[in-house]
């Protein structure tokens, strides 16, 4: 767990539990992510990673416990908490009939930044690595990597303090994955707290300050990456998976 301080964590789960009938998807999760920290959540399919992210987003209500963003309970302050978060799923699905710039304009307006002009929005797309000529093209023609970049531009333009990512590098080529990681590190350096659910052990070690391993809805391990090698992390992960 991250050390307690007077500043509320960017993302915090306290005794978080989610059940679907008799199936326990999440079993009393406690998690705290500080500003500027990248926390990578590893685990097999169905371990509860996506459920955790959906609970942070308020898409599903918790069965017990609570989720807080910058100290505010998501259940009671749904819209307020969403002003501070950005979400990048495995596939950033945008409106295919709109251009990258138009999509960015729409989503930043939804985020309450409707005053941003095209030039400023273009700058964000540029910083996210999207080629300027692509910004004016319909998103229907974009590759997955390009859509992920628009997603990052959205987070930057929104000024999000927390970033929730659900297997964002899945399906990206190594170069695209590397570029994406660099962008996350840049955002982290700017103080953004990041929770990334992933299967990519290498990437977790590369960019994560801490890594958590989930199994059957429980956080079975949580460790800093500083003193771990890639092989150590892989071994620990597999040990948990083979019990």
């Amino acid at each position, binding site marked *: 767990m991250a050390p307690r301080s007077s500043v509320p964590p960017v993302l915090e789960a306290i005794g978080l539990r989610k059940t679907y009938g008799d199936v326990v998807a999440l079993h009393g999760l406690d998690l705290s992510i500080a500003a500027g920290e990248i926390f990578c959540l590893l685990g097999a399919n169905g371990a509860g990673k996506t459920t955790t992210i*959906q609970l942070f987003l308020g898409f599903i209500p918790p069965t017990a416990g609570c989720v807080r963003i910058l100290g505010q309970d998501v259940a009671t302050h749904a819209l*307020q908490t969403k002003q501070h978060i950005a979400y990048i799923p495995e596939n950033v699905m945008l409106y295919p009939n709109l251009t990258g710039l138009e999509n960015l304009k729409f989503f930043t307006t939804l985020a309450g930044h409707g005053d941003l002009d095209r030039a400023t929005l273009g700058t964000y797309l540029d910083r996210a690595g999207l080629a300027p000529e692509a910004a004016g093209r319909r998103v229907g023609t974009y590759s997955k990597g390009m859509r992920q970049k628009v997603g990052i531009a959205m987070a930057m333009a929104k000024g999000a303090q927390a970033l929730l990512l659900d297997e964002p590098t899945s399906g990206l080529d190594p170069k695209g994955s590397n570029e994406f990681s660099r962008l996350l590190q840049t955002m982290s350096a700017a103080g953004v707290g990041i929770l990334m659910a992933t299967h990519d052990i290498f990437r977790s070690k590369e960019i994560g300050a801490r890594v958590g391993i989930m199994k059957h809805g429980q956080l079975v391990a949580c460790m800093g990456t500083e003193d771990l090698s890639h092989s150590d992390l892989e071994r620990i992960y597999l040990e948990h998976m083979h019990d």
Partner: protein
Amino acid sequence: MLWTVVRMDARNVRAEVSAWLALLLLATGVTYAAWSGAAAVHADRQAVATALTEQQTRMRDLQVRLHAVQAGQKQATSTEDPSDPALVGSTLAAVWAVLPQLPLASVAVGQRDLAAARVRITTQGPSGRSLQSDRPMTGPTRLLTGAFDLAFVLVALLPLVIIVLTYDLLAGERERGTLALVLAHPVSLATFVLGKALQRGLLLGSVTLGLALLAVAATVDGPWTSDDAVRMLLYLGTLMAYVGFWFAAAVAINVRGQTSAGNALALIGLWLALVVIVPGIVQVAVQATHPPPSRVELVNLTRAAASEIEAELSDLQGNHGADGKGTPAQNAQAATERLVAVQVALEKRAAPVLQAFGTQLAAQQALVNALRFLSPAIVLQEALGDVAGNGGHRLQQFHSQVDEFGQRWRNFFFSRVSARQRLTVADYAALPQFVFREESLPALGTRVGAGLMGLLLPTLLLIGWAGVGLRRGVRVM
């Protein structure tokens, strides 16, 4: 926030081919229906104008002949005597009672196919009413589908266009994956859904309103009064309420969290139930509980009566003077009086059938008025018929007034026959004239307003149902 969603959705809809095709289909349907309705109304007006012109000419000729007979310039024959009240009332001066067409007549022409909007008034036969429609059904297809008028397009096709525009209102966002991204922003699901529904509602509402206005503007004929303006408002108000109902249904079904295909099926099912099945069941219920009066019986009675009159007339004409008890003129007068007596007797015989006919029609209409609330489609159809002036209620009023007028017509001539008076030029000037007395606007407004409430209430219920679903939340991914 709401308008941000509205603007974004407007851009999305603009890029959707299916939306344009649906709107094009609607515009084509409205255009053809407006033309078809206008053609039917024009044909009616032409037929009425022709009949009235012939009537005017005939009346003028009769009066000229009467002048000539009275001046001794011409000899009146027994079959063309313009001063013979029995002859003039039964054939020579037969007049048309016409249900005037309202400026919005082309909106719904349906009932004019089945019920005559002009009736030839004579002293012969039961009530002097011709039951033949002036514009018979044209072919089996027409018989099956009814008139392709604006009312048909608005009642039946418009909901399908709404379904095309709304079946994936929310499900499409979820299936594309954009719903999760949207709801990760500080916008509520209710605002998002409302924004999208509002945008599409405004788009379709304005297109429908524009087309409906254009269709009326292109086909409107005759003087425009403040009453017609009120009818126009009732027409547009009911239409917009109908559009609102279908949008509310689409939102409520979308909020249930089914797939786009599931939503489309549910909405098509609802359309089938409300536009096809329920009206059919209502029709069956009306027929079963208030069996339609036998038109065949009435027509047979009319024919039998006419035959008897003709037989009597022939008998009288063949025998008058043959008994040798009076002068030919006296015998002819006696025959005429007997003829009137026969007609009056036949009328009495027909009265119960006619009364039953009228009572059944009124009962049918009353039941339809009550059952219309089972389907918004019936509510709109009835309302459009009412504002167009071709609804069942106005037609019933017309036939009731025709009956009254027929009585006045007979009284006018039979009183002169009984008093053994010949017709004068002054009598021609004093011939009864049929003028249709319109239903009062408040009465029309009350009936259409009740229908409007019958549309708004289920709409509010659907909105409430959708609201409950939105508060409960939907599956985002």
